[in-house]
């Protein structure tokens, strides 16, 4: 547990993704089996101990610690697991100071600083490194897995007794789930690939097929065993991705055009009697969309865009609503009947990766498309429809169609090489995304906040606003990208030189600087006073030339709402 606890501790305080990656890589290389497998499962939220709940921990604490002291401490710390880890009674460390007037180091009331080496009486004994009795992650997982509701408190107590404060924190986070150390499944997989110099695509495919603690995965990674066999498993296929189109004109006899829908890319897999829904990063998100899992009853793997149907956001009835509507369904662990009824989900299918046990990924797009068109009618049409290809005879016509697209659910155009197989990741020349031109607005900087990591000393996050008809400035968005390093320096100086108020880490600035903000779309939002929310806003230009009074009005932005 010592090594795992140290890893958790470091991850809590490390903000940069690369540093986190390095920490996990180092752990995976050096920790023993099966500890590292369990650790990986804990980091990615794959562990569940039904007998141990937050209530178990609270009840256990109540038996060891005064309730009022726990309440005061919990209030101060703000997190039950951390409070419990810090509060858990342990033998106090000995301390020695002077006792009685005129003791250590005092002569006639004058204190003499000690020499460079400390007097023996000042030595504090450190707890021995083996103070936790060599408890391993595996022992902890075994003990928690075997726990029942009735003996869980006793088991947890005996484990807590054998750990120090950092170990107790790691134990409780592991037991209760929700590490919150900023490690996504994707990052964990990358760490595995990097630690053992294997392809991330292989790791992604194997990941969901092998249960924790992933012994065959480590054996394969270290070259001790062949690649595990994935027949009859609903495993994830890494997505094929697109490069942005930058000014090139493509020949439409080589490339087919499709709409790029503004939802989330998903993969639905049915195999071995099981259906799974994966997001682009390979996270399983089926629990939030049970209606899709239930409706997908064919042995196949599809790639498509998850959307919600609806008038909810002003979309055409029966068509796809804007991304804003979809957001109501994202990031949920469970879903209510009301949500299912108000925001019904469906998948607009782009591609067919496997069907009836045959892997189609090696076939050219044209052949996969033929099979896809034959396959989609086998699915319930209320939940699955085919993403149509755009009929255009030449590139100029496509550009016109793209410019004229008014559907809120259209994010742009995809161009796919007709003879390309389905390959993982972004490969040059195969797929292109050609997003609609961003919308732009001239806004006034209102507040600024410092960034993270390398940007910790720079005011790099800006809140900006537009004018109401009454001449009041209301915030319409927040951006922290789009500028060059030189512009960042300039903006940072502007913020420092024009601060008029401070609210904790936030500075309010003089309302004099106009920022040209680019954004993909803008939506009605009840969460903001302006009633507007921008999608992916970034700073396009700094308009030092423009007076703040000439920045855009809220009404102008409202007219852009989709």
């Amino acid at each position: 547990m010592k090594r795992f606890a140290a890893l958790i501790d470091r991850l809590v305080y490390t903000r940069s993704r690369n540093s986190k990656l390095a920490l996990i890589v180092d752990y995976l290389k050096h920790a023993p089996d099966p500890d590292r497998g369990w650790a990986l499962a804990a980091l990615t939220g794959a562990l569940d101990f039904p007998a141990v709940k937050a209530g178990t921990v609270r009840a256990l604490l109540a038996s060891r610690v005064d309730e009022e002291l726990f309440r005061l401490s919990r209030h101060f710390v703000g997190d039950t697991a951390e409070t419990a880890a810090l509060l858990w009674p342990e033998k106090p460390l000995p301390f020695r100071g002077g006792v009685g007037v005129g003791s250590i180091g005092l002569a006639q009331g004058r204190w003499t600083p000690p020499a460079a080496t400390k007097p023996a009486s000042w030595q504090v004994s450190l707890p021995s490194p083996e103070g936790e009795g060599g408890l391993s992650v595996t022992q902890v997982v075994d003990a928690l897995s075997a726990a029942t509701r009735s003996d869980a408190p006793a088991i947890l107590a005996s484990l807590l007794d054998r750990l120090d404060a950092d170990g107790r924190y790691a134990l409780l986070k592991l037991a209760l789930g929700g590490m919150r150390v900023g490690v996504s499944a994707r990052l964990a997989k990358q760490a595995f690939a990097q630690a053992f110099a294997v392809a991330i695509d292989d790791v992604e495919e194997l990941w969901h097929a092998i249960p924790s603690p992933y012994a065959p995965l480590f054996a394969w990674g270290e070259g001790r065993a062949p690649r595990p066999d994935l027949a009859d498993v609903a495993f994830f296929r890494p997505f094929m991705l697109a490069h942005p189109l930058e000014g090139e004109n493509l020949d439409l006899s080589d490339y087919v055009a499709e709409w790029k829908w503004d939802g989330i890319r998903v993969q639905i897999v049915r195999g071995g009697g099981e259906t799974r829904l994966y997001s682009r990063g390979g996270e399983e998100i089926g629990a939030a969309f049970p209606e899709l899992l239930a409706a997908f009853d064919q042995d196949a793997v599809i790639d498509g865009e998850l959307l919600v149907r609806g008038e909810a956001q002003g979309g055409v009835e029966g068509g796809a609503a804007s991304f804003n509507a979809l957001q109501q369904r994202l990031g949920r662990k469970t879903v209510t009947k009301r949500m299912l009824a108000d925001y019904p989900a469906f998948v607009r299918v782009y591609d067919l990766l496997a069907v009836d046990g045959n892997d189609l990924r090696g076939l050219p797009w044209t052949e996969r498309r033929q099979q896809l068109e034959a396959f989609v009618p086998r699915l319930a049409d209320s939940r699955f429809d085919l993403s149509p290809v755009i009929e255009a005879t030449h590139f100029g016509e496509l550009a016109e169609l793209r410019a004229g697209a008014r559907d809120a659910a259209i994010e742009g155009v995809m161009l796919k090489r007709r003879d390309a197989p389905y390959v993982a990741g972004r490969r040059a020349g195969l797929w292109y995304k050609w997003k609609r031109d961003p919308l732009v607005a001239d806004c006034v900087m209102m507040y600024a906040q410092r960034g993270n990591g390398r940007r910790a000393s720079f005011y790099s996050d800006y809140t900006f606003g537009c004018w109401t008809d009454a001449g009041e400035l209301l915030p319409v968005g927040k951006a922290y990208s789009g500028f060059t390093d030189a512009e960042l320096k300039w903006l940072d100086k502007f913020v420092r030189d024009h601060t008029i108020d401070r609210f904790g880490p936030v500075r309010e600035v003089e309302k004099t600087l106009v920022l040209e903000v680019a954004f993909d779309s803008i939506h009605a939002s009840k969460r903001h006073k302006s009633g507007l929310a921008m999608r992916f806003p970034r700073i396009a230009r700094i308009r030092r030339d423009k007076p703040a009074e000439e920045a855009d009005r809220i009404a102008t932005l409202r007219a852009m709402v989709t």
Partner: protein
Amino acid sequence: MAKAKPWLEPHPHGLYVRPADLWIDPSRPVERAAVTHGHADHARSGHHAVFATPETLAIMALRYGVDAAASRNAAFAYGEGFERGGVRFSFHPAGHVLGSAQIAMEYRGERIVVTGDYKRRPDPTCAPFEVVPCDIFITEATFGLPVFRHPPTEGEIAKLLAAVRAEPDRSVLVGAYALGKAQRVIAELRAAGWTAPVYIHGALEKMCQLYAVHGVDLGDLRLVGESDKAEMAGQIVLAPPSALNDRWSRRLPDPVTAMASGWMRVRQRARQRMVELPLVISDHADWDELTATIAEVNPQESWITHGSEGGLLRWCEMTQRKARALHLVGRDVEDEGGEEEA
């Protein structure tokens, strides 16, 4: 027995000793003040006469100018004191920072001890806390909750040194309060065998010099402002906490942000301050020290000031000790802003 004693009165801006017409650590200017130690929330400027240890007077003179060292002030070494209005005052080590003292007062056979801030752990830069038996014990409670148990200082210093060695191309920037914490961290580093120069922010310079004058050897100190960026790679830099994420830190080679404070025990606190390397090193007693000290002094009554009074009050209740909370204003127990200290 210890009923409400009319001769020592708690007021929001300090403790007033009526027979002596004297205030202890008042938060606004008064005629006569006895001051426990030099931190700004205890030692304010503008008093007419100050009674304190020589080190505390020197610190006040450094911070507030020559006025604090005027002839009407009086300096008392540990164990020494004075009498005024029938009250016998004496100063005893508190183990908090250089010159920090508990103030003991005896009047008509009753003894009251005001701790100011204190700790029980060894500190190479100041005299260790001394237990003074008394009837009423007025204790601080900065870390008066059982979640605060500071780990051994040696382990935290080892963590700091490991971080320095792990990142030879970066400097490790340690946020430490300018009076006490900074010098203690340097002295602990020296005790652990770190002989390389320690680079300091200009705001720490004078206080480090003052410590040296009082016999605390801090080794080779260099000002960041007078040093090359490249030379500070793989080295330790100390600055006041307010400078940690400020423009000032850009002159350092890709610094790892560390902070030495008892508040670092709570992860969320460290994260809020964007600290990458929290060092739980405190100049205040932790929960175990606070409770053990009350038990050791074993007064008839404990008065609890500034901090988490609630936790310590509850402990006194559980152990059948008489206690009350005093609500003094102007004590910095939070770690925001420039004057933080813990």
